[in-house]
């Protein structure tokens, strides 16, 4: 929004401001950002530069390609595109190759040493193969885009399925997951609960009737001992708290009766 007035340089390359896009860029400026973002990395950008000039990978003019590569890099920076470190690594590598090609070398050493471009060519070629493979893969007829699974509901779903088996470990694993998730939500407090109370709550509820009152004492079984009595009492209190049952005492010290609410 502040750019329109000054026409700032698009890029600075080697300190030189560029107010025009490189000649060989046929992209309108507003599309440039999108265009630059489409590169999948330095190898992709290099392949683009090479293909655009219909060059053979084996014939890369390293100096020229390096210059163009640097221009794009400068543009990307100018556009404040997030520049992956790999782009800079490639820039350094290109510079190194260029310098090694320029430096005169004694014939003896040259014979042993690989052409400095060889590794770059190898990688470009390898990447190009997989770019083609990706395009071929994309062209395969695939489900949900080109063809669709054909299905028809059975007229009547049979309920004759054999129910799948479950073991306790699976059940625990499920519980573990749901509790871990609940912890993440943080809204729910999962407390350590004494199971026997919960179980006793179910048992008490089952025994009780909504219409008839049951004597409170009938809920207790002396043979369960003190623990049993305490557990039952806790269960009753908890049920009371949750408004699931009703306690009635006609007068002080009269027998207490219980019934289910509702």
């Amino acid at each position, binding site marked *: 929004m502040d750019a329109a007035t000054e026409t700032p340089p698009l890029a600075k390359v080697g300190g030189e401001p560029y107010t025009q896009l490189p000649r060989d860029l046929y992209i309108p400026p507003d599309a440039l950002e999108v265009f630059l973002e489409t590169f999948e990395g330095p190898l992709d950008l290099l392949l683009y530069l090479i293909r655009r000039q219909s060059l053979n990978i084996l014939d890369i003019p390293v100096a020229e390609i390096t210059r163009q590569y640097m221009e794009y890099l400068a543009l990307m920076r100018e556009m404040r595109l997030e520049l992956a470190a790999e782009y800079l690594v490639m820039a350094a590598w290109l510079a190194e190759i260029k310098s090694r090609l320029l430096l005169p070398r004694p014939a003896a050493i040259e014979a042993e040493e690989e052409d400095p471009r060889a590794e770059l060519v190898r990688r470009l070629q390898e990447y190009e193969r997989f770019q083609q493979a990706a395009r071929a893969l994309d062209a395969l007829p695939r489900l949900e885009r080109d063809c669709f699974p054909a299905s*028809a509901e059975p007229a009547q779903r049979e309920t*004759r399925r054999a129910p799948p088996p479950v073991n306790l470990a699976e*059940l625990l694993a499920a519980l573990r997951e749901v509790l871990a998730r609940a912890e993440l939500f943080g809204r729910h407090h999962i407390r350590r609960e004494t199971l026997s109370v919960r179980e006793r709550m*179910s048992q008490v509820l*089952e025994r009780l009737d909504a219409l008839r009152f049951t004597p409170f004492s009938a809920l207790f079984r002396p043979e369960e001992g003190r623990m049993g009595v305490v557990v039952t009492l806790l269960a009753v209190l908890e049920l009371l708290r949750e*408004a699931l049952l009703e306690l009635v005492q006609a007068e002080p010290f009269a027998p207490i009766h219980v019934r289910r609410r509702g």
Partner: protein
Amino acid sequence: MPELKSILEALLLAVGEPLTLDRLLATFPEAERPEREAARTALAELAADYVGRGVELVEVASGFRLQVPQAFAPWVARLWEERTASYSRALLETLALIAYRQPVTRGEIEAVRGVSVSSGIMKTLQERGWIKVIGHREVPGRPALYATTRAFLDYFNLKSLSELPPLATPRDLDAIGAELERRAVVPDENSTTPTESADG
């Protein structure tokens, strides 16, 4: 362009559920859209083609549907039987929550799971005889309270709920799970292969 009949067939098979005539016709660009009468005729032809086949065209409340006719139920049923290998995670989580927090309402399960519990799951658990309604919570809507059954305990070889591994922090449960696996508690008699119910 493919035959109208085949296009309608393709649409119904791709969707696998009923489609109204309007929705079928809406898939044609306006300029090429067939008349309703033509579409009806094509559907009638399709229905005639299917006589004796593994598929039939029916008209139900929500439109036209291709379905596998009743006559094939025995084969399809045997296929399903073989397929139902395990319960969904949602079902197991629901069961675990009922076991540990009973009596509990569906809403309370949903509050912990963070997602709604499908009626199908509650139905499956009840059909399997593992849970039952033991009352209602006296709050608006009187939601049903669920608890596990004796059949549930039997299935998992438990004498009482107190034999369930204690409900501890999720981290401890990892250890318990490992322990259980070590002890190889496999309560189910036919847990290895879903045996085909030998009838006849």
